[in-house]
């Protein structure tokens, strides 16, 4: 951290800042210029609140040079993390496609969808059993009965499973059926849930909050890793912008940015970002082209009859066509599918 003092500030102001830093155990490198003095702060500055020092008399600016996160950063671990879930490797050379319905509705729907997406090349079956719905009157999910169907359908097609966990009390009951626990955008900063997932030893798929900065998102992942669970997958799913035509704006740039900042696998969800089926396929192509480690995509065997998010779900034929397109793109970015 660097503290830039105002030009020609009184010596007493500089001494006050230095005294405080040194009293707190930091080393200070003072550099007195002809007009301006700069203080370099050395030590564990992650704990320091920069605003506190901006309030001192004579301080012009406080600049953080190091990132506030540690475990998720490339500085902590240079090589990319490969998350292993039920025989599927996320973060390796293979781009992993996770597909399935928004919500598990019944046996026929899950098995039919699973068969179709597996045949097209999906490796992970998604499906919600606990649904965070905007309205309390909307379908809230099948619970454990739904998870049993998800597991059975995935096993029949040699797939791993991913499903959203909404609260701490659900974690244990989900573990027998779910290979990847998903944290939804609305829960990205539910720090109690993140801490509890840090104690689990099951991979976690952490969606980006709809108004979260990349730094806030990485700090949320840091909560999970801080508990000892190092298997975290980050998932971009669109952020709130001024644009109203699409539900959210998929932040494609987050993919290369995360890849630079973090060793964790980064995937993206085009379905929730746009909320419209006709825009899902072009975005999925862009996600893969941008270098993502995977795509999370909603597919329903009969979208017109879907209980939830039908308009943003692909039907199995559209999904198969998308997979054909992605197979053409992946070699261009040095990956395989």
């Amino acid at each position, binding site marked *: 951290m660097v503290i830039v003092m105002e030009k020609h500030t009184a010596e007493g102001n500089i001494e006050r800042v*230095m*005294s405080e830093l*040194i009293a707190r155990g930091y080393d200070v490198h*003072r550099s007195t210029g002809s007009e301006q003095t700069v203080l370099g702060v050395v030590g564990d500055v992650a704990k320091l609140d920069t605003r506190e020092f901006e309030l001192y008399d004579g301080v012009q600016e406080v600049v953080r040079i190091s990132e506030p996160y540690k475990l998720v950063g490339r500085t902590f671990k240079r090589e990319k993390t490969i998350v292993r879930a039920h025989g599927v490797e996320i973060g390796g050379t293979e781009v992993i496609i996770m597909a399935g319905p928004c919500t598990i509705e019944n046996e026929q729907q899950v098995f039919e969808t699973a068969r179709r997406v597996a045949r097209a090349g999906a490796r992970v079956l998604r499906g919600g059993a606990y649904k965070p719905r905007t309205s309390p009157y909307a379908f809230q999910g099948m619970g454990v009965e739904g998870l049993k169907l998800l597991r059975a359908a995935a096993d029949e097609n040699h797939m791993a499973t991913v499903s959203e966990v909404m609260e701490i009390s659900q974690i244990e009951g989900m573990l027998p059926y779910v290979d990847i626990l998903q944290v939804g955008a609305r829960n990205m900063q539910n720090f109690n849930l993140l801490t509890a997932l840090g104690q689990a030893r099951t991979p976690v798929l952490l969606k980006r909050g709809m108004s979260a900065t990349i730094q806030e998102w990485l700090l949320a992942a840091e909560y999970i890793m801080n508990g000892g669970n190092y298997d975290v997958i980050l998932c971009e799913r669109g952020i709130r912008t001024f644009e109203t035509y699409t539900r959210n704006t998929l932040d494609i740039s987050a993919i290369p940015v995360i890849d630079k900042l973090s060793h964790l696998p980064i995937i993206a969800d085009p379905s929730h970002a746009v909320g419209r089926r006709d825009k899902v396929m072009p975005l999925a192509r862009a996600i893969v082209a941008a270098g993502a480690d995977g795509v999370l995509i909603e597919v329903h065997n009969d979208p017109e009859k879907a209980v939830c998010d039908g308009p943003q779900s692909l039907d199995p034929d559209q999904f198969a066509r998308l997979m054909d397109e992605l197979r053409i793109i992946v070699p261009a970015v040095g990956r395989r599918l």
Partner: protein
Amino acid sequence: MNRSDAEQEISRIRDAIDRVDEVIVRLLNQRAKYAIEIGEIKGVLGLPIYAPEREKDVLHHVEKTCEGPLDAATMRRLFERIIDESRSVERRAAKER
């Protein structure tokens, strides 16, 4: 001076610089030993590591002693770093006690 003489001369001067550096390093360590002693005493007495008045005196003394070719401001900048490191050494000594 021809080219080979010049090269020899550079190498001779560089050797001289290496000798001077050895003396500087020895003296800096001698200075650090005093800082450690002071740190230990500060630890016993519970005095703060940062003593701005004393730092001012040290810099003033250094500037006054400086006869060039380095100017006083340059010497001051160099000693600011030496003082930064002394504080760090003192702190460790005060803690380890």
